[in-house]
């Protein structure tokens, strides 16, 4: 439990979270746009994603282990984290875009903007604070969930937590829990700051 190990595992933890959130955004963005255009598909998809969210995270890691190309290690951890990060991001994107005032959307159409121009010029800018709030929630929860990734060999600060539990050593548990908590607070503050800047 050297300081160097804390730094290394913190960096690994951050890396897991960054990849998972980034991938979730990349997957969610086009999906959200499609879902805002199709009401039925939207209900189904959000329903399914909601259910995934209710499965305990440790169980999701367990389910993913036997899948081909995954197995024990980082890739399984990242896939599970993506699944968790997906819901808040996807939902906020959909809600944000659908929440654009009907009068504003109608005048955009009436002025002869194309669907693409309305998306980029009106819907996304107006939905941006809501989308960012979703990314913020996803990032903070993923920082927490990522500690469990260590159980399947994902690494990160969870390594200390599980080692500490095995050794019944509170200090070792705290060496993982405290940096993870600080990371979550820092991420929340930083993304909250960006959010406030854009919503004013």
């Amino acid at each position, binding site marked *: 439990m050297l300081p160097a190990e804390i730094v290394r595992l913190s960096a690994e933890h951050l890396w897991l979270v960054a990849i998972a959130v980034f991938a979730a955004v990349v997957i969610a963005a086009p999906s959200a746009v499609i879902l805002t255009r199709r009401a039925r598909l939207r209900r189904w998809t959000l329903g399914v994603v909601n259910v995934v969210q209710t499965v305990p995270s440790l169980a999701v890691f367990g389910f993913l282990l036997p899948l081909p190309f995954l197995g024990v290690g980082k890739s399984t951890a990242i896939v599970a984290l993506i699944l968790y990060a997906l819901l808040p991001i996807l939902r906020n994107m959909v809600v944000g875009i659908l929440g654009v005032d009907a*009068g*504003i959307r*109608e005048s955009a159409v*009436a*002025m*002869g903007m194309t669907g693409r121009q309305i998306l980029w010029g009106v819907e996304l800018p*107006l939905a941006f604070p809501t989308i960012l709030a979703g990314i913020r929630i996803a990032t903070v929860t993923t920082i927490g969930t990522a500690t469990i990734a260590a159980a399947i060999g994902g690494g990160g600060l969870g390594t200390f937590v599980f080692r500490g539990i095995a050794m019944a050593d509170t200090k070792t548990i705290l060496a993982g829990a405290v940096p993870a908590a600080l990371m979550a607070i820092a991420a929340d503050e930083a993304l909250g700051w960006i959010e406030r800047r854009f919503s004013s």
Partner: protein
Amino acid sequence: MAVLVEFRGVTYQIGGREILHGIDLCVEESETVALLGRSGSGKTTLLKMVNRLVEPTGGEVRFEGKPVTDWDPIRLRRRIGYVIQEGGLFPHATVAENVGLVPKLEGWPKERIRARTMELLDAMGLPAPVYGSRRPRQLSGGEKQRVGIARALAADPPLLLLDEPFAALDPVTRFEMQQRFARLRRSFGKTALFVTHDIREALMLGTRIALLKEGRLEVVAPADEFVQARTPEATAFLATLGEGTLDESHAAG
């Protein structure tokens, strides 16, 4: 005079209910036609058929002699200015960006957009150096409405559609806006079709008034003749003008 907009036997049904029944109406160049009617009379639906926000279920709407369904909807809409309550301004864009929107979509050079924006804001009594960089939320209701009209006029479209543009304003501001609009319309020489439930506004701004009652045109007449109309709905609307403006014995008959 050339006919700019023509409704031919236009009907509109939704959920088995017929909102509009066989509407025939022409709007000629440089006139202002007021579509007058109560809430739910179908006047807004009729207006939105011109720029294809709503498609008729029967009949045909023509713009510049061509059925609107033969127009590319994007091209059609860029030739028609559209003003709604509160202006429908983009809250994330400045006043100048809102006004310059259609010219920008049309690919005008920057300098020309700026000149046009300044010209229109000046004409609306909103000097660009003061108002150009403001956001819509920093404007009063009347100012928003003026920006909305400036935006609709920006690419110099031959036709303006207005959907109860002044309804949300306080009475004094509304009156000022109506006067300003009447002056502007004369100086820009635009054709306009506007929806209102206020007969004063219809008489003040409309060169002709088309009165809708439950999806049918009851009266179509120039403003000065409209005050003589004796159909039930016309009488009901004229009665709202109050004492002294209406011959009581005629109204009762």
